[in-house]
């Protein structure tokens, strides 16, 4: 991969994400646009695709030996409580359908329905990449993929330095534990085509994602999107956007408490 040395280091993970079809529409467009003007990244991307192709195919997978297969079946049959009766394939299909799609599996079904409804935010390329969508999508994503925090700490003096060198601005990090919103940590996220810090707070088990970036104009009015509230304001040259499923009143209180704390900062 000779071209690898000429790629833009900050784009590297995006190139892989694009090759793996793991980027949302906005980020995919941004990377594709960048590759039009950056031959180094374009070459590196082609190398990634070529290598993925090399590793694709069943030739590199292993087939479980028949002896292992037989041992595993025998082992299960001998497990206490297991019954050795063999089911006809049709019956198994019926059982599986019953368990996993229809009867008795209310929890599984509603989880699937929930996941499907969330997918709309995370993956739908047809939806215009509006800022409010992106904020809610980032919030949902943080809950879905057990990627709530990159730095998990309730100490603002640990979280703030973690962002140094990762951003081109220094975010204010304030713990609001004494107001009932303990800081959980922070992570990097991508909103509006840029890397932004997300600070994570909790309130009675509800997660609040606070995104901030330097800008003078409020880009998002307070609103509710599919059950998630967004409260946004500008302060000290930064836009703050808090996203949560917490009730709107408490989210507004969170905003007021944070505004006050920031003004003393």
């Amino acid at each position, binding site marked *: *991969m000779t071209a*690898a040395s000429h790629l833009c280091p900050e784009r*590297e*993970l995006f190139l*892989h*994400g694009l090759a*793996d079809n*793991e980027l949302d529409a906005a980020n995919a467009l941004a990377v594709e646009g960048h590759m039009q003007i950056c031959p180094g990244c374009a070459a590196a991307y082609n*190398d*990634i695709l070529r*290598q*993925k192709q*090399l*590793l*694709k195919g069943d*030739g*590199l*997978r*292993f*087939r*479980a*030996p028949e*002896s*292992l*297969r037989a*041992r*595993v*079946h025998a*082992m*299960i*049959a001998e*497990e*206490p*409580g*297991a*019954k050795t*009766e063999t*089911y006809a394939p049709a*019956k*198994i*299909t019926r*059982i*599986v359908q019953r*368990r*996993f799609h229809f009867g008795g*599996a209310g*929890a*599984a079904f509603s*989880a*699937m329905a929930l996941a499907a409804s969330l997918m709309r935010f995370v993956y739908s390329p047809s939806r215009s990449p509006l800022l409010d969508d992106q904020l809610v999508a980032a919030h949902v994503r943080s809950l*879905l*993929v*057990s*990627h709530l*925090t*990159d730095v998990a700490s309730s100490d603002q003096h640990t979280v703030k330095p973690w962002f140094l060198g990762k951003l081109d601005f220094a975010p204010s990090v304030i713990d609001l534990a004494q107001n009932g919103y303990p800081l959980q940590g922070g*992570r*990097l996220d991508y909103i509006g085509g840029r890397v932004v810090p997300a600070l994570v707070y909790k309130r009675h088990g509800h997660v609040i994602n606070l995104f901030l970036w330097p800008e003078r104009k409020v880009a998002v009015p307070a609103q509710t999107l599919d059950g998630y509230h967004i409260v946004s304001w500008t302060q000290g040259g930064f836009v703050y956007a808090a996203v949560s499923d917490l009730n709107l009143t408490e989210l507004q209180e969170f905003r007021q408490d944070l505004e006050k704390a920031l003004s003393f900062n």
Partner: protein
Amino acid sequence: MQGSILSSESDTARRGEHTAVFEAMVLAHLNSAYTLARYLTRRSDVAEDIVQDAILRAYRGFDGQRGENVRAWLLAIVRNCFLTWKAKEVQGSEASPDAEGGEPSPAYSGGEGMTLETPESILIEQQQNGAIRSVIESLPHPFRETLVLRDIEDMSYRDIAEITGVPIGTVMSRLARARKMFAASWKGTEMTSFMGKLP
């Protein structure tokens, strides 16, 4: 939790159903489990033991409600079984130069079932696959497993994060590094033994 389903459902028909569902839902992924175990352990005998252990644990913990993500769940168990084995292995042989106790298997230099009558194109493909496997096996564990889960087992970043118990950002950076390591190593292999042989 383990076994509670079986003890509470004393009805034998239900147990049979439990087994049938398990076989249809979980054993369908036996090849995936074995592939991961082979790449993790780099030894076929240990891989078989680990898969057997993992299936037993999976069977005892199976609640029949796992839906779509049954493969990721099984692979996470395989990985845990591997880590348990690895910890014992390191403890048991302090003097071992290889901390993972693995030894590159000579079997990879050619494909299994390779015969003299094998057409040359297949032979070359088998040799290339053997060489690719060797390069993957030479990667350190976190990078090896990330690469195998993504590019060979085709798991999503989110699934890999769950299986390996790290944030998705870590998965992404490990994957990028794993691919770079593979590329560097593969380039060397290609130069020495495959130049001119491949179409």
